C-alpha cells in the first residue's frame, strides 16, 4: 500500500499552500525524511518531507499549484503500485471531471474543515470567557488571510475557490450576513459555461468572470484574468502600452497585503501626525554599543532597536494606543506585542515580538533580528505573524523624511520611523545649532482615540528618545 504525502497544516490560519517547486520526480527513490518539495503559505516557506522510504509513484500537483492543506500531493510506495485512487479530484490532471463521487469526497473534507473550525471556536470561547460573551479574540488577532470580515463558511470558501468566485462580491444570507455555500451557488447561477481549456485553467485558481466572449457568452481561455501573452500584447497595444508586459497573478503574500491594506483604508478613520526627536543621545548610545567589547554582545544594537525599545516603554504608559478597535468595543492590552514591518522578497511581512515590554534592550534587539531574518528567509512560522497590538515600520534607512503608515487593522496605532536629519535649533544664548533629529510619523485610528492623546503619546516618545539612557534605568 502506497503512503500518502499530505500538504501539512502550517498553523491554524493556513488553509492552503503553494507548491514552489518539487525536488524529486516521479520514479525517484526517496528515503524517509527527505525533502520532497518546497511550499509557501501566504506567510512563509517550508519543506515537505517524505513520510516513508520508497519510490515516488505520483506527483499530483504541478509547481505553482495552490493546494488546500491535508490534501494528498504525492504518493510513495513500491514501483508498479496503482496510486490512481490516491490522486485527488482537484489535481490538475482530471480537474474537469467533477463527478458526484468526488463531490461527495469534497463534502467530507469540508465537514472536517467545519469540525476544526469548531475547535478553534471552542478555544476562542475559553479565552474570552471572562468577558461574558463568546467573541473572537483569535480571529481578531489573526484575521483570516483574504477575507476581512471573516464571515464565510468553509464550504462556501471551498466552493468559491474551486469555481473562481470572488467571495467579497457575494452577499451572505447566513446568520449575521455569513456567506454560506448556497450564496456562492447563487452567485454561480447564471454564470456562462467554460470551454474545456478555460475550465482547466480556472481549476488552477484563476478568477472567472460571469460571462465570456465566446458563443452564447461561453467563457474562453482569453476571458480569464491571466490571459495568453498575445492577447495581453494586443490588449495592451489597444490601450497604448507598447512594449513587453509582465503580468503577475496576485496571490500569496501580495493578495493578503492588498486585502488588508484596502480593508484598513476603507474601514478606519486613520490619520498621521509627524514630529521629530533629538537623536543625539541615541546616536551617542549606538556609538558606545558599537565600540563596546565583543563579549558584551551589544554591538548589534541599532537605532531601530532603540526606537523599538523606546516605543514599547512609551506604549505601556499609553494603553489607548496599545489597543484594538473592534467597532463595538476597544480592547486595551497590558502587554505590548510589537509588530515589526519587514521588507522580504515575497513582500511586506509583520512578525510579532511577543511580550516586548518584558524584554531588555538586548533581548528585544536579538528577537527583532531573529524574526526579521526568518521572515526574509521565508522560514518564519505562520503563527509568529499574527497577534500584534502595535506596529513599527522603519523607512529611515531609505532616506524617507516622513510618510503615512497604513494601520495594521484592528491595531489602533502604527509608528513610522524616518531618517535622521540635522535640524536648526535656536540656542539659549542666541545663535543656531544643527541638531540631528529622528523623524517620526504616527498613524492612529480616530475611531479609537483622539488627536490629543495621540499627540501626547508622540510627545512622550520624543522625550523618551531624546533622553534614551534614562529609559534604561529600571
Amino acid at each position, binding site marked *: 500500500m502506497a503512503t500518502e504525502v499530505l500538504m501539512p497544516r502550517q498553523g491554524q490560519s493556513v488553509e492552503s499552500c503553494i507548491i514552489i517547486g518539487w525536488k524529486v520526480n516521479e520514479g525517484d527513490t526517496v528515503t524517509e525524511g527527505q525533502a520532497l518539495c518546497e511550499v509557501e503559505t501566504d506567510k512563509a516557506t517550508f519543506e515537505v518531507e517524505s513520510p516513508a522510504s520508497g519510490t515516488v509513484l505520483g506527483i499530483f500537483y504541478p509547481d505553482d499549484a495552490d493546494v488546500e492543506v491535508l490534501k494528498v500531493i504525492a504518493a510513495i510506495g513500491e514501483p508498479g503500485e496503482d496510486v490512481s485512487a490516491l490522486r485527488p479530484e482537484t489535481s490538475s490532471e482530471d480537474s474537469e471531471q467533477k463527478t458526484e463521487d468526488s463531490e461527495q469526497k469534497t463534502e467530507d473534507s469540508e465537514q472536517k474543515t467545519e469540525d476544526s473550525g469548531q475547535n478553534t471556536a471552542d478555544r476562542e470561547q475559553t479565552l474570552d470567557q471572562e468577558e461574558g460573551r463568546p467573541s473572537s479574540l483569535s480571529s481578531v488577532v489573526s484575521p483570516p488571510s483574504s477575507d476581512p470580515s471573516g464571515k464565510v463558511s468553509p464550504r462556501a470558501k471551498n466552493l468559491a475557490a474551486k469555481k473562481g468566485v470572488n467571495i467579497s462580491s457575494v452577499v451572505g444570507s447566513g446568520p449575521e450576513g455569513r456567506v454560506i455555500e448556497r450564496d456562492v451557488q447563487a452567485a454561480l447561477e447564471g454564470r456562462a459555461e467554460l*470551454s*474545456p*481549456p*478555460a475550465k482547466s485553467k480556472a481549476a488552477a485558481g484563476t478568477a472567472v468572470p460571469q*460571462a465570456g*466572449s*465566446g*458563443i452564447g*457568452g*461561453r467563457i*474562453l*481561455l482569453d476571458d480569464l484574468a491571466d490571459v*495568453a*501573452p*498575445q492577447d495581453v*500584447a*494586443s490588449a495592451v497595444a489597444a490601450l497604448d502600452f507598447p512594449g513587453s508586459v509582465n503580468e503577475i497573478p496576485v496571490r500569496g503574500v501580495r493578495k493578503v497585503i492588498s486585502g488588508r491594506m484596502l480593508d484598513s483604508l476603507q474601514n478606519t478613520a486613520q490619520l498621521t501626525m509627524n514630529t521629530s526627536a533629538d537623536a543625539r543621545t541615541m546616536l551617542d548610545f549606538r556609538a558606545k554599543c558599537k565600540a563596546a567589547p565583543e563579549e558584551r554582545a551589544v554591538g548589534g544594537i541599532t537605532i531601530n532597536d532603540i526606537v523599538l525599545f523606546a516605543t514599547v516603554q512609551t506604549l505601556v504608559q499609553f494603553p489607548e494606543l496599545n489597543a484594538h478597535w473592534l467597532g463595538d468595543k476597544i480592547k486595551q492590552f497590558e502587554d505590548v506585542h510589537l509588530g515589526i514591518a519587514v521588507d522580504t522578497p515575497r513582500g511586506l511581512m509583520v512578525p510579532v515580538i511577543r511580550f516586548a515590554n518584558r524584554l531588555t534592550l538586548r533581548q528585544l534587539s536579538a528577537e527583532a533580528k531573529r524574526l526579521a531574518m526568518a521572515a526574509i528567509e521565508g522560514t518564519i512560522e505562520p503563527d509568529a505573524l499574527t497577534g500584534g497590538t502595535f506596529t513599527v515600520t522603519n523607512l529611515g534607512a531609505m532616506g524617507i523624511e516622513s510618510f503615512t503608515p497604513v494601520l495594521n487593522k484592528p491595531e489602533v496605532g502604527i509608528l513610522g520611523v524616518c531618517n535622521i536629519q540635522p535640524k536648526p535649533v535656536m540656542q539659549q544664548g542666541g545663535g543656531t545649532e544643527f541638531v540631528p533629529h529622528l523623524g517620526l510619523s504616527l498613524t492612529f485610528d480616530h475611531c479609537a482615540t483622539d488627536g490629543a492623546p495621540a499627540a501626547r503619546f508622540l510627545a512622550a516618545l520624543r522625550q523618551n528618545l531624546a533622553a534614551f539612557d534614562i529609559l534604561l534605568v529600571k
Partner: protein
Amino acid sequence: MATEVLIPSEKSGGAEFDIIIIGAGPGGYVMAERAGHLGKKVLLIEKEYLGGVCLNWGCIPTKTLLNSAKHYVHAKEAPDFGVTTGEVTFDLSKAMSWKQEVIETLRGGIGFMMKKNKVTVVNGTAKFLAARKVQVGEKVYEGDNVVIATGSSPFVPPIPGADQIHVMTSTDILSIDTMPESLVVIGGGVIGIEFASFFSSLGVKVDVIEMLDEIIPFMDRGQAKEFRKTLQKDVTFNLGCKVTAIDGHTVRYTAKDGEEKSIEADVVLMSVGRSPNLADMGFGEAGLDFDRRGIKVDEQMRTNLPNVYAIGDVTGLSQLAHSATRMGEVALNTICGRRDRFRMNAIPWAVYSMPEVAGCGLTEEQAEAAGHRIESAQLPLTMSGRFLAENGKKGPGSIKVIKDADTDVLLGVHMVGAGVAEMIYGAAVMIEAELRIKDIQEIVFPHPTVGEVMRDVMFSL
C-alpha cells in the same frame, strides 16, 4: 426619453416600425425574417431583388453554373470509373436557364418567408435622412432602429480600357450568351478563381493575372500553392503581375521581373475586389462615421449614430454572406437587449472551384503573428476510402490543422478537395467551442466519409 435609449428593446418608441432594414441581401432579409418572427414590426427596403447580390449575382448563380461544369467534367471522367458516355457537350443556354430557375425559386422562397413573418417589403432606393428616418421615393418611414445592409459592388480599377463592353464584372459575366474562346481574369481572389475554374473546365483558355505572389491571399500558403498547381493543368497563372492597360482585346501587364507583356482574350473578367455601397444614400449628411472601407461598427454592429446599425459587406469587416447573416442576428439581439457579439475567429469560408477550398480559423502565419507557439499537421484526402473511391488515386486534396502547442486548443483548419465546403462547419463548431485536440479526438466521425481525414489528422498532431 432617456429610458428609450437605455432600453431600446421592449419599449416601442412609437415609430411606425420597430426596425427598418435597408437592403435585402443575406444580412438584411435574414434579419428581417428573424425580427418578424419575434413579433417586431419590420420594414425591408430593396432596390432590386430579394436575396441581394448573393442570390442574384453571387453565391447562388455561380454555384449553379459550377455544378453544371462539374457534371460536364464528371461525365468526361466517367470512363475511368466504368461508365461509358457518348460525346459530352456543354449547353450554356441550358445551364443559364437552370441558373435563372434556381434564382427565381429561391427568390420566391424569400418572398414567402417575408409574408409569413409579416415583414413589410418596399421596392425602391432608400435615402437615410437621420437616425430613425428613411425615405423611399416620396415617402418617409420612421423606425426605432435603422439597419444599413446595403452591401457592396464590384470594384473596377481605373485601368485604361476597362470600360469596354468585353471587360466584365462578375455580375456581367453571369449573363453571357456565348462561350468565349479565351478569358483573362484580373485578380486571383475567390471570385476570379471560381470563374477561372468554371471556364477552364469547359475548355476555355484562361489566364489569371494576380498582383500578389500567390492566389487566394487568406489561404494557408502551402495549400494555396498545392491548389494552384492542381488548377494549373487548365489555367495559366501570372503572379506578381500588374495590369497596365486593356487595348481592345489585348491585356497589357508588367511582369514580376519588370518585363512588359500582353495576353489576347475574347473576354476580360475584372475581379480585383468589391467596395462597400456608401454613395447617394445620405450617409455623410446624416453624420454616419464611415470611410472608403466601410461603415464603422462595434462588436454589436452599432454605428456612431444611436439606434443605427450596419451589417454585411457595407461594414468592410467580412465580405461573406454568412458573416452578413450573423451580423444581422447580432444587431437584432442587441436591439432586443440580448447580449451578443460578432466574433470573427471562427467564420468559415469556401471557394467552390474544382477542387474546392475551405478554411476556418487562423493560418500558421496568422497564428504565429498572434504570438501562439503552434504545431500543425496535414494529411491527404486519399487517406479516406470514400474519397479515393470517388476521386481516384490522383484526386487532389488535403486537410491541415493548426493548434496552440501550449494549450492544445485548435486554432485553424484548412482544406482542399472535392466537397470540403460541406465539412468546414465542423471546424467552426470546434473553434467556437474552443475545443482542444484531445477533446476533438473523442468525437466520433461516420465511416466511410471524407471527414474522417479530419479525425485522423487530429491524431497525427
